[in-house]
């Protein structure tokens, strides 16, 4: 039952991480792709194209940064023996 609780807590954390990332991505692509004057209520063709590329690029940047952080962490732990567990 303790394991179940842990699994639930981890799933909740993952959901929160995802939701935080989604909100930052939406916010970032709004700033990059949507004109501030809101002349029209629907997305213009140029805006939809921009959003698609923006999501792809944001996701790519996010993955790259994750890899960099992991590499840096490994480099820092470097000579030190791996901690058990």
């Amino acid at each position, binding site marked *: 039952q303790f394991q179940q609780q842990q699994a639930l807590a981890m799933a909740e954390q993952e959901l929160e991480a995802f939701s935080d990332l989604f909100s930052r*991505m939406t916010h970032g692509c709004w700033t990059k792709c949507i004109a501030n004057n*809101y002349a029209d209520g629907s997305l213009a063709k140029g805006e939809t194209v921009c959003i698609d590329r923006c999501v792809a690029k944001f996701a790519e940047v996010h993955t790259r940064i994750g890899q960099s952080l992991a590499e840096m962490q490994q480099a820092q732990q470097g000579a030190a023996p791996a901690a058990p567990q």
Partner: protein
Amino acid sequence: SNGIGMQDFVRMYNHLSERCFSDCVNDFTSRTTTTKEQGCVGRCVQKFVQLSQRVGQRFSEQQALQAEQQAAAAAAGTR
């Protein structure tokens, strides 16, 4: 889990209010919004909802693709 969804919705709703208010309301000579401001807020909300749905779709496609590639890489690794 139902609670988390609610909390996310509330934050999105509050955030949307903040952004559309900030972008559309600039006249503080009266206590009620002008017709022009109301129109701007309406279009701001519409755009955001469309944007948000599109980002969600594209992002989950992206995630699915990435999961596939990882699975393929893992399979290649165990060979």
